Structures are given as C-alpha cells and as structure tokens.
C-alpha cells in the first residue's frame, strides 16, 4: 500500500471565502449602509472639529454678536439663528465641535487604556492578581462618580482634560469587569494551552490570542463610552464646569438653549440634534465594526438553527388514510427528500427509502454529514432551521407522518415514537428534579394524577435499572453521571410506551463499559416490549451489537441496505466496504490502516452521478455520468453501485 497520504480537497468551501478574507476591514465596512452613513457623519464631525476653529478663530472669544438680533430663528443671514447674545448659532456649533470631541476622545481613551489591560490581566492570570484587581475595581465602583468629577473640577476649574480623564477613570472598572468576564472563557480554550506549550510569551498570547477574540467587545464598549462621555460632558458643560466662557461647546449651547427656552424654543435643537446623531453614529459604527471583524474568520452564512417544525408538503393538507401494504412494516419511509434553504434550494436527504418491522432494530450508519440525523429527525418532523420535507412518504402504523396535521403528529411524538439523543443532559431541564420532569411526561401522555404520575415515573426509572429509583427521582440532572442521565432519558422516552424508539448516537458520549450497559438495556427493552429501534450511529461495533439490519447512508443517499451478517461479511457498496476496512478493529497491527481519501461532500456540493465516485477506487466513467439507482443484487439486499459484482469478486480474496 502506498505510504503517501492523500491530500484532501478543501471540500465544499467555495472560493467566496478567500475573497472575504482578502478585502480589508475598511472595504468590508463600506458594504454596510449603516456603517457608511455613520462613518460619513463622524468624518464630517472630525473635519469640522479640525477646521472650524481655524476658519472662525474669533468665535471662541466672542462675548456678544449682534445685540439687536438676539434669539432669532433660522434665516438666510444666520442659517441656524442667533443666541441670546446675538451670536451665530451655526458658527458656535461648528467651532464647539472640537472641544466636545476632544473631551469624548480623552474619556474613551483613558477608560480603555486602564480597563482593557486590567481586565485582560485579571482574567488571564486569575488567582491573586484577579483578587487584587477585583478589590481595586470594587473600590473605584464604590466612589460616587459625579461627585468625584465635581471635586476634581473644583481643583482644576474649567479644565476639560481634568474632567474627562476623571470620567474615564470612573468608567474604567466597568471596562475591567466586562473585559475580564470576556477573557475568562477564552482563557480555558485549548488553543491558549497550545500556545503555552508552544513556548510563546504571556504578553504575546494575551495580545494575539485573547485580545483578538475580545476585540469586538472592546469596540462595542468604546462606542457606548463615547456616547456616555458625550452626554456626561454635555451635562458638565451645561453646568458651566468644564469650558471657560465664552468658548462654545455643544453642552454649553444646550445650557444656553434651556436658559432661553421660554423666549425661543429653537435654540436647544441644533446642539441636541448634533449630539443625538453623533451618539447614534457611534453605536451603529461600533456594531458594524464588531460584525465585520468577526466576519473575517467566521464561516460565512451559517444560519442559526432554530427548532422550527417543517411544514408539510404543499397541497397535502388532509392526510389520506394509507392502505395497509403487503409488508407488515411498522415504519416505511418511501423516497424521502429533505431540503434546506429558501425554497428548498439545498437537498440534504435525497430519495431515502427503508422500513422497520415491529420489534426490529435497524442501524442507520454513516459518517457525519451523511444525513443520518436529519433522516431520523425528519421522521417526527423535527428538522433544524429551515429544513423541510419536500417529497416522499413516512408511513407509520397506517398514517403518513409527512403530511399529518401538527396536532395529530404531536400525539405520535413521544407516545408512539420515542427519541433519545447523544447528549442526554441537554434534553433534561437542569432546574427541575428528574422525577418531576418524568412525571410531567407521564401526565401529558396518560393524564394521570400527580401522585400516580410520580409513582409511574419511579417505576420507569426502575425499568431502566437505575439503582434506588426513588433517590434518582429526587435528584437534579447535574447530579447524575452520563450513563445515569442516558438511562433517565430512555425512561422518559418510554413514558408513552412507544412502538418505535429513535436512538441518535445514544452511546457516543459514554465510556465503553457504560456503553455496553446501555446497549444491553436497549436490547432488553426491544425484546421485552417488542419495541422497534432505529439506531443512528457511526460505530460499526454498536451496530453489530444491537441491530438486525443496517441502512448505510452516504451524502444524503441510502447506498446499501442489508441484514447484518451479509453486510459485514460481504458488503456490496464500495463505501460500506471502505468504511468497514478503515475501522481499526479490523486492522492488523503494523500495516497501514486502509483509508478513504478526501471527506464527505457537503450538501449542495454533491458530485454528479454517484455521490461516492470521487473517493471510490472502483469508479468508472459510467459512475460520473448519471445518478445511480438502487439495485437488488440479492434477496433483501440493495446497493447503489453498478460495480457490486466486481466488489463481490474482490471480497473473496480479502476475507480470510
């Protein structure tokens, strides 16, 4: 066998990703209208702050303007009117911008310069450093903020710098706290440990690994503080504490406006609007910069999965009674097709058919991304995100679940079809006792009294062989071990006496000894209650342990269906065969493990023809041209491969 390791194609990631990376932060900001508008506004403010005092140097010292023209509204001569001393409002607004913006910048810089390093240090080093900094933070927080500013301003009268620096210091504990709590979870990330093991210095790790992750938080904080500083500064200027009159500032102008409010209500509007727009611009720009920074490295257009129910197939509102078919299958899935995205643009499950008889255990096998879980969840129409059943039938006990009204389907879920998942803890509410949650499930199914439901809950816990079920019922989920939690989840699934249990990787998160016990329990339930099991798994050993038959899936399709022994002894699809061979159980020590080059293609990037052909050693031209149908090479066997006889021939030489 060759020792060269195959180079995986970077599967399914379109070239768009790299264009996103290459564009600069600024360019990407330009694609957001909110960011553009706020940047334009802030740019105007900055230009004005620089230019206005140069253009109208006299305004800062102007005590009075045209005393015969006071408190006038907007006119051609004075575009924004005049104030109570007859000075031009527009000029004062523009000239006052500089002092206002300088003040904001001072406060924001000071609070970030103190708060960010302090928060990073406290969060990263923890222990004594954290406690000492926490103590300092609390001390600062306990000071009456504005009073301190007043005291400082009484020592440095009319000093914008002193006032704003003090404000920055007063605000810094909030920064410290937010940055610290943002740092704590990142401190626990494995890549921090990896960087330490790589011998990188602490300052490098803090700047490059921690700060780079929390930069979004810092930007948003900065925007909030800019707005806070602007408003606070306006208040101080209104009180005449930080700007020596007659120099203009936005706050001072608001003060003038309020003083003249009864005579001329117009005066408070120009500085008020300028302030509001600037505050909004800070907020919008902060949010945009944060989003754009994250967009660079996060995978584009990943939609948050929201648990929304799939709509039934269009037009099929009334569920027609399904005639009993020749086979006595409990569940029969016919040509099931599931798609995601708007208008069902991306198929994730393509033409899947299989059936389960009463009391039978069927394994749904494949690697992640093959559509096993989506298939299982679509049976009870619990699809994540905007997933939708776009075709096919799901016949369960004489009804088509694909177009059953939601109300009736709810009765099927839980009572006729039970579900257990890989993470039993997630399915239990941490705030309630186990017994209470189980009793609730019992009551929704049976309508029993409280007392009877509790007794039934304990009985269910006993039936899954939990030692001391009374005690377990009084426990909270976090007090259970993983194996116990999975038993509780199974007990809950049994509450409605289901005919079919969907078990989605029920033992993947468990230790092998616990896994063996859970599989034993499932087998016992299957035997004693005649319960059918659909077991979703990637572990061949688990399939071999529990199942009677197996359905192998690859890239959204069923590629092989067979009873267990023939499937393991003589797989008739190259994917099944390769996957069985790559199991290290079958490997003889010393040899290279047989492997499949590449990875499972993502939905939307399935190749033409056979989905497996790019990774298949048997692939020929015919495999690439058209979709491959399921063939029936033998009784009760199906394979989606046109070369299954070649495979058959090969096996004779492989099997010892």
């Amino acid at each position, binding site marked *: 066998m060759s*020792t060269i*390791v195959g*180079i*995986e*194609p*970077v599967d399914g*990631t379109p070239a768009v*990703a*790299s264009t996103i*990376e290459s564009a600069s932060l600024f360019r990407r900001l330009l694609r957001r209208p909110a960011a553009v508008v706020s940047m334009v506004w802030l740019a105007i403010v900055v230009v004005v702050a620089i230019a206005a005092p140069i253009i109208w140097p006299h305004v800062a010292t102007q005590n009075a303007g045209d005393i015969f023209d006071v408190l006038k509204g907007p006119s051609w001569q004075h575009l924004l009117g005049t104030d109570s001393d007859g000075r031009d409002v527009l000029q004062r607004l523009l000239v006052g911008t500089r002092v206002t913006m300088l003040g904001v910048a001072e406060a924001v810089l000071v609070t970030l310069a103190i708060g960010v390093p302090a928060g990073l240090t406290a969060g990263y080093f923890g222990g004594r450093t954290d406690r000492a900094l926490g103590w300092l933070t609390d001390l600062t927080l306990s000071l009456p903020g504005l009073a301190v500013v007043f005291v400082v301003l009484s020592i440095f009268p009319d000093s914008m710098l002193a006032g704003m620096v003090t404000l920055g210091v007063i605000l810094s504990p909030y920064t410290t706290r937010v940055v610290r709590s943002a740092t704590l979870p990142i401190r626990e*990330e*494995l*890549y921090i*440990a*990896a960087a330490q*093991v*790589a*011998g*990188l*210095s*602490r300052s490098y790790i803090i700047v490059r*690994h921690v700060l*780079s*992750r929390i930069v979004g938080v810092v930007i948003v904080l900065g925007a909030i503080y800019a707005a806070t500083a602007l408003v606070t500064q306006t208040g101080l200027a209104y009180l005449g504490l930080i700007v020596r009159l007659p120099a203009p500032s936005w706050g001072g102008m608001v003060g003038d406006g309020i003083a003249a409010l009864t005579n001329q209500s117009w005066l408070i509007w120009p500085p008020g609007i300028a302030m509001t727009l600037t505050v909004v611009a800070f907020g919008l720009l902060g949010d945009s910069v944060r989003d754009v920074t994250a967009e*660079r*490295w*996060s*995978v584009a257009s990943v939609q948050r999965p929201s648990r929304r129910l799939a709509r039934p197939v269009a037009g099929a509102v009334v569920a027609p009674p399904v005639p009993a078919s020749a086979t006595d299958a409990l569940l029969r899935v016919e040509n099931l097709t599931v798609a995601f995205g708007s208008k069902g643009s991306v198929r994730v499950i393509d033409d899947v058919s299989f059936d389960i008889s009463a009391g039978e255990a069927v394994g749904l096998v494949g*690697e*992640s991304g093959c559509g096993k879980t989506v298939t299982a969840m679509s049976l009870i129409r619990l699809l994540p995100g905007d997933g939708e059943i776009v075709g096919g039938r799901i016949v369960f006990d004489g009804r088509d679940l694909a177009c059953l009204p939601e109300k009736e389907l709810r009765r099927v879920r839980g009572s006729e079809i039970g579900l257990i998942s890989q993470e039993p803890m997630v399915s239990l509410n941490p705030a309630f006792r186990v017994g209470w949650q189980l009793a609730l499930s019992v009551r929704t199914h049976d309508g029993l009294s409280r007392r009877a439901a509790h007794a039934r809950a304990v009985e269910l816990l006993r039936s899954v062989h939990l*030692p001391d079920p009374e005690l377990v019922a009084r426990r909270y989920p976090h007090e259970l071990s993983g*194996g116990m939690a999975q038993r509780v989840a199974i007990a809950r699934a049994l509450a409605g006496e289901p005919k079919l249990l969907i078990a989605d990787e029920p033992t993947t998160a468990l*230790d*092998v*000894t616990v*896994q*063996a*016990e859970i*599989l*034993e329990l499932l087998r016992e339930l299957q035997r004693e209650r005649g319960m059918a099991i659909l077991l979703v798994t990637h572990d*061949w*050993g688990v*399939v*071999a*342990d529990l199942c009677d038959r197996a359905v192998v899936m690859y890239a959204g399709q069923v590629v092989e269906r067979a009873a267990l022994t023939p499937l*393991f002894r003589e797989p008739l699809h190259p994917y099944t065969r390769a*996957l069985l061979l*790559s*199991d*290290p*159980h*079958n490997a003889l*020590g010393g040899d*290279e*493990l*047989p*492997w*499949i*080059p590449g*990875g499972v293609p993502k939905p939307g990037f399935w190749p033409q023809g056979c989905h497996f052909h790019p990774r298949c050693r048997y692939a020929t031209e015919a495999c690439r041209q058209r979709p491959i149908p399921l063939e029936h090479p033998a009784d009760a066997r199906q394979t989606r491969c046109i070369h299954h006889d070649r495979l058959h021939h090969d096996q004779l030489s492989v099997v010892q």
Partner: protein
Amino acid sequence: MSDPAPLLDVRGLTVEYSRGRRRPPLRAVDGVSFSLANQETVALVGESGSGKTTIGRAILGLAPVMAGEIRFDGEEITHARHRRRRELSADLQIVFQDPYSSLNPTRTIGQTLSEVLRARARPSRDEVQERVRAMLEHVGLPADAEQRYPGHFSGGQRQRVAIARALMKQPRLVICDEPTSALDLSVQAQVLNLLRRLQQEFELSYLFISHDLAVVRYLAHRIIVLYHGRIMEHGDAREVYTNPTHPYTLALLDAVPVPDPDLQQRRRTTRLRSALTNTPPEHPNACPFAPRCPHVINHCTTSRPSLDTTPSGTLVACHRWRELRSSNSTSQALGATN
C-alpha cells in the same frame, strides 16, 4: 523494560485538584510511574476520570503536581519555571482532542503555524514561510491553507493543522490527547496513518492518550491501563490486548463492541455484567477497582495491591492476578478449541 536513558521518566506522579475549602482535594493521578524511550509510543488508556489526560498535562506543566518526579532527557522538569518551560517547548509538544477549540478561529493557519517559531529565535520571514509550507505538505494540506482561517476546514483537516503546529519546532516527544476521537472513521484512519508516518520521518516519541483500545493497539508499543488515577496494568501492547490479566483491562476489552455481528453476539453472552457503581472505595488503601470488580475479595477492600511483574513482563496491580491469569488462560484455551 526501559533502556538506560529513557526520554521521559515519570516517578510516583501524584496530581491533586482543589475542590474548594469544604471538600478534600480530588486526587486525579495517584503515584503513577512509567518511562518512555526514544521513538517509542506508550498509550495511556482508561475511561473518563482515569487521570490519563491529567498525566499528559502534568508533563507539560499544565497541571499541579503534588508529589513525584518527571524527568525529560535526564533533566528534572517537574516544577520547571516559566522560562525553562518555554525552552522545553521545542522538544515537548501536544495535539489536543478537540480540533475545534485547539485552533484560534481569528488566526489564519499560516499565523498559527509561524508564531510557534517566534517563541525563541526569530528566524527570517522567508525561512518561516518556507518551513510553514514544508510542514503543510508533510501533513497533507494544500499550500493555500496558509491564508485561510480554521473555520474553513473540516475536523480532520484541522487536526492535521494541529499536528503541523506540534511538529513545527521538530520536538522529540508529542503528547497526543485523544487526537482522533472527535473524527469520523475514514478520517481517523487518515490521521492515524499520518501520525505513524510522521513518527518515522521526524523520529518522534508519542505519549498517546486514548479511551479506544482498538486505536491504541494499532499505534502503541506499550499500553498503560489506568483507573481512578492508578496504574492497573502496564505492558507490551500486544500482550495486554490479547492476554489481559487485570480484571479491569478485561472488562474494558469486553465492553468494546467488535464490528462483527456473530463474534459480538458470542462475546456479549459471555461478558460479565459489571456493577453499575462507579464510586471510589471507602477505605483509603483499597484497590480502586474493588467496588466494580467481579473477583473482589475482602483483602481488596483494605489493602492496596502493588504492581507485580508477571512472567510475560506485564506489570499488574491486582491481589489475585496469579489465580486469574491461570483461569483466563484456561478459558481462552477453551475458547480456542470451541
């Protein structure tokens, strides 16, 4: 078993985690000793809570060592200072289990790989670039991976990046902490083959931490089976796998379902049903496995078994290993004739 100068020598390692003032500290690792030779792969096997990951972290200075000694290349590094640790990073590396959390999502693959070289000497930009490209090729990643972010890669590819990062400074010992347990079967095979090939190319030693005995058997020369922080059995990989002596090793091997329906059915019927409890024993000197052991006798609950050497060279911590070994071999002989 170990040659005169082992690369790594761990003696009586004990790690305790504080659990607050009210509760006694949690002893995650309890007097563990083993050594690892050059270019050897030693596997630490056990279930969750067995202390296998903690041992790896203690060697790297990421876990608090309460007692014992860790020597690397003859040098005592148990409580090495921050500065010495940074120097040691050239020789001692790790690949973590979770390829998603172990790469910083905000850093490109190129940045992640090249920053490792900046830790001590600062090679020129061209040299760094050269070495990053060469390493990407070694681990089977496309050259354009350098410019991309971890978010654009699958789990298997990310694990290749993590392996590349560990090998950038050409270390002598790599601790592999369940490097394939988050991966799919076919990808796991790719990564295991890669680890094996790189071991020869870079003359590496591996401390391989895993719960999967099949993976371990494939890769390791020696296996150490841990339970509640103590060594239960320690020996040649093939010997431990095919001829286990300790009841815990036996239970562990029996619990793993094999991908063969008929064989699995036979195994299932003969499997011992172990007790459900997983609580540590009450007596401080008891064998930790006593509460679950099917062969437990009174002596086990009051006296801690020592690590004895069996005739095949395996070390076993069990009071009854002699009886069990003879009964095991008879039952195996019976199984072979059936």
